[in-house]
């Protein structure tokens, strides 16, 4: 028996996906037409991507995936999506001062522009929201390119594989295998007997929330309560809230909009951190399943507690009166809004901001960092370790302590009344440890690599850069704050962060499994 992987099958199927990615570029194309911008950028991108797709598809016209091929396919699919996503950036910025545009002046500039574009694209598809765009404004970039940036997050949110299973019959054949490798969280919930129907249900819920959200945002604009939230902005933010993305075409993120808009964004960010399968149950009239779900309760509890603590801290003056965010000391509404917004954004890995929390006191920043460690729920679009894993890790530790006093006691771990499989617990423990190790090692690497080119990172900068990329969160602290940029990192660090975003979105396991299986076969 061969330990090798039939890579041709994985790559062949990849071609199918790439081909359809070209179709999604119709959205920025329409924007370009609407704003009278250069339409050649996206026309050429579409032709190029479709051509690549058709060519790659021919590697294996009739792909049949086993478990290892599925893992390889899923890992490659995200890498390929990120690579394909760079095409419009490189073309649109060609010859301009854009940080993501293709530069041909020198070899160094050439590679740097490609790394920047890859960083931006990976940050988009993995819904991270970290940016190297430099100046974010429609003076510097076309509306079409900014919309493409938003769209990548929306496509990546519920998972590009889940999307492919939902609409592409070629992929649906191998659906269950693939979805288990991609869907966030330790356990795949099959809602319907057919996996394609499950994928479709999840995407419809996702789509439905997005539409409702855009309508509300634009409705506020029409009602005169949100002067800056025009149709472009409503759609652009609609694309990045539900996938817990965090990209915004505004340099000031959500701080560019009125308090009413900020209050509307908060619940939608929180929704994005909930397991979407629970909404499916609610739509079927089984709301009690959601209310009894242990992870949902823990998530809601964590959000409430951390928000309350932060609100008190802000009220007591943990934030200096800064330009963005305004004064919070002694102001109840603003303290509560800033606390709820920042926690709603960082706890489940969205990455929007309404205040420059990088300028807050260290104690408030540490609390935000703690929230970043929690993550969203399994089956949500959020990143991070995920609430359910922390719950199980906590229960496993408690059991360990109890059984050391009573060695004979047999104690299964239960979640929402159901017994959790011991293999799953072992998997979750190793995932969590691996996550922490990768986070710590990467933080060290980023510090050293920055020092190599003569830049000193602060403690909060290096740790938050590592955590914000592996957790698909986006903004960090210091120069990486919500209105800052990752641009100053050296290329090697950016590539590491591209890897962290990739591995973090796939929850480490598929990527490492592919590496280990490749090493085994040698």
């Amino acid at each position, binding site marked *: 028996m061969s330990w090798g992987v039939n890579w041709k099958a994985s790559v062949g199927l990849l071609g199918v996906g790439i081909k359809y990615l070209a179709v999604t570029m119709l959205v920025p194309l329409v924007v370009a037409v609407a704003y009278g911008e250069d339409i050649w950028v996206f026309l050429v991108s579409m032709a190029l991507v479709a051509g690549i797709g058709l060519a790659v598809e021919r590697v294996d016209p009739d792909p049949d995936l086993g478990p290892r091929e599925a893992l390889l396919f899923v890992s490659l699919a995200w890498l390929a999506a990120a690579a394909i996503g760079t095409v419009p950036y490189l073309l649109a910025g060609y010859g301009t001062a854009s940080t993501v545009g293709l530069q041909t002046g020198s070899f160094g500039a050439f590679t740097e522009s490609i790394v920047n574009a890859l960083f931006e694209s990976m940050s988009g598809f993995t819904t991270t929201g970290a940016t190297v765009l430099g100046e974010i404004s429609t003076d510097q970039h076309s509306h079409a390119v900014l919309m493409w940036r938003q769209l990548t997050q929306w496509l990546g949110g519920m998972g590009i594989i889940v999307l492919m299973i939902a609409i592409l019959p070629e992929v649906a054949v191998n659906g269950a295998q693939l979805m288990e490798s991609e869907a966030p969280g330790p356990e795949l919930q099959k809602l319907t007997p057919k996996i394609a129907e499950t994928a479709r249900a999840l995407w419809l819920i996702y789509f439905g929330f997005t539409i409702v959200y855009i309508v509300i945002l634009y409705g506020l604009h029409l009602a005169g309560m949100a002067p800056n939230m025009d149709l472009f902005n409503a759609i652009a933010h609609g694309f990045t809230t539900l996938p817990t993305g965090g990209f915004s075409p505004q340099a000031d993120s959500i701080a560019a909009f009125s308090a009413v808009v900020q209050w509307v964004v908060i619940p939608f960010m929180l929704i994005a951190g909930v397991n979407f399968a629970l909404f499916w149950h609610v739509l079927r009239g089984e709301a009690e399943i959601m209310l009894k779900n242990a992870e949902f309760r823990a998530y809601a509890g964590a959000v409430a507690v951390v928000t309350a603590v932060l609100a008190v801290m802000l009220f007591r003056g943990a934030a200096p009166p800064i330009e963005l965010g305004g004064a919070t000391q002694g102001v109840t509404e603003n303290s509560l809004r800033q606390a709820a917004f920042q926690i709603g954004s960082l706890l489940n890995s969205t990455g929007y901001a309404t205040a420059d929390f990088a300028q807050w006191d260290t104690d408030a920043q540490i609390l935000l960092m703690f929230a970043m460690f929690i993550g969203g729920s399994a089956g949500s679009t959020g990143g991070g370790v995920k609430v359910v894993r922390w719950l199980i890790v906590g229960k496993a530790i408690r059991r360990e302590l109890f059984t050391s006093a009573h060695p*004979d*006691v*047999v*104690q299964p771990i*239960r979640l929402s009344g159901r*017994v959790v499989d011991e293999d799953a617990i072992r998997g979750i423990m190793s995932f969590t440890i691996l996550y922490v190790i990768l986070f710590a090692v990467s933080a060290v690497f980023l510090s050293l690599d920055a020092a190599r080119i003569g830049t000193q990172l602060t403690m909060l900068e290096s740790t938050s850069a590592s955590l914000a990329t592996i957790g698909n969160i986006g903004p960090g602290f210091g120069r990486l704050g919500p209105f800052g940029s990752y641009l100053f990192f050296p290329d090697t660090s950016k590539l590491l962060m591209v890897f962290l975003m990739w591995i973090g979105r796939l929850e480490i396991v598929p990527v490492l499994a592919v590496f280990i299986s490749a090493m085994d076969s040698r």
Partner: protein
Amino acid sequence: MHVVVIGAGEVGTSIAGSLASDHEVVVVDVDPDRAEQLKYEIDVLTIAGDGTSSEIQTAADVGRADMVIACTDNDQTNLVACGTAKTLGDGFTIARVKSTDFLRTWQGNEGAFGVDFMVCTDLLTAENIVRVIGLPAAIDVDPFASGLVQMAEFEIAEGSPVAGQTVSEADRFESLTFVGLFRDGELTIPRGDTGIEAGDRAVVIGSPESVQAFATDVAPETTPDEADDIVIVGGSEIGYQTARLLGERELRPRVVEKDQERARWLAEQLPKSVVMEHDATDAEFLTRENVDDSDIVVTALGSDEQNLLVAVLAKRLGVDRVIAVVDSPDYVTVFEEIGIDIAINPRTVTAEEITRFTYESVAENIAVLENDQAEVLELELTEGCALVGRPISEMVSEIDARFVIGAITRGHQLVTPRGDTVLQPGDHVILLVDSDSVSEITSMA
């Protein structure tokens, strides 16, 4: 009555033995030697052969039988035997099963598998154990409607919290009915404002859980509660069912099981119990886990020898009450003679249940109270009988007899009787009747 008994093990033999004197009994057993031997032990006709085959059943004249009792050691055999019997005739079929799955299927679908009455040995035994553990304060306890309903009689002791209360104050449980009060040997039909005094004997009917909760009110000292430590040794089906039923009564038994996989299974099934994986014959383990300080130990291991060993060990370590499951009926007295508090034999329990069933006519189940002053009856209501089709309050005022309806089961679900409840054909009604009115009531059902 022509009765066919399939399976001549201990249960079958015991049933056949108690029916042989009054009825025409045919016993079928697959083992020719056993069939031959039984012929001389008791006065029955025996046939050697497979009890599920229609050829053998025809030879046993099942087509003419009033009752077919399938009580081999194998569940599937018993179910198929009943199914076959239904194709041959219209006799009442009784199946003995071990699996509670089959019981649940049967309870959900009247007449499933061609079985008219199903007795689940292990569950029945567990129910017995739980009654012994849970209601030490009761003078008399009887199950009705295959365990869904319990009747219990309590003596109200001096200083009981219930003494001095009225009936409506004491009866604060949804599915419990206060049906009778004996004072100085005289029956009173209680009303809401009837006062309860020390020395009275109260009769209640309701779900086993509510009876248990009432017992805690009546005798908080003797009735076990959450704080009491109950240890079940052996995670056999009986041990499991006992733990499960105790859990339903808000008790938290600990279970000891040696086998790793079984222990894991038990721990998964019994969220309210602590399951320990260890050999219970290890005295050092028993002391380490403070089993010696526990209030009640139940031994439900696979073999009598092990049960005996653990029971004696537990008694020596100073456990208050030790209840042992004994597989062989011959050893029951041996266990009790050497000081084990209660020994329960599953086969005897099963045989008694089936035999009791064969005795009963319209009234399916009877308990006699206080020197036959009153009886508790279970009636299955037939189409067009005088009790169906109108509210209970109306019925009670019209019928000139002393009785109280304690509980109703409809399709194996408990229905708490209220004044406006309308009885339906097919309902099982559990009621307390003054002995003078028994014939009047049974004639109406």
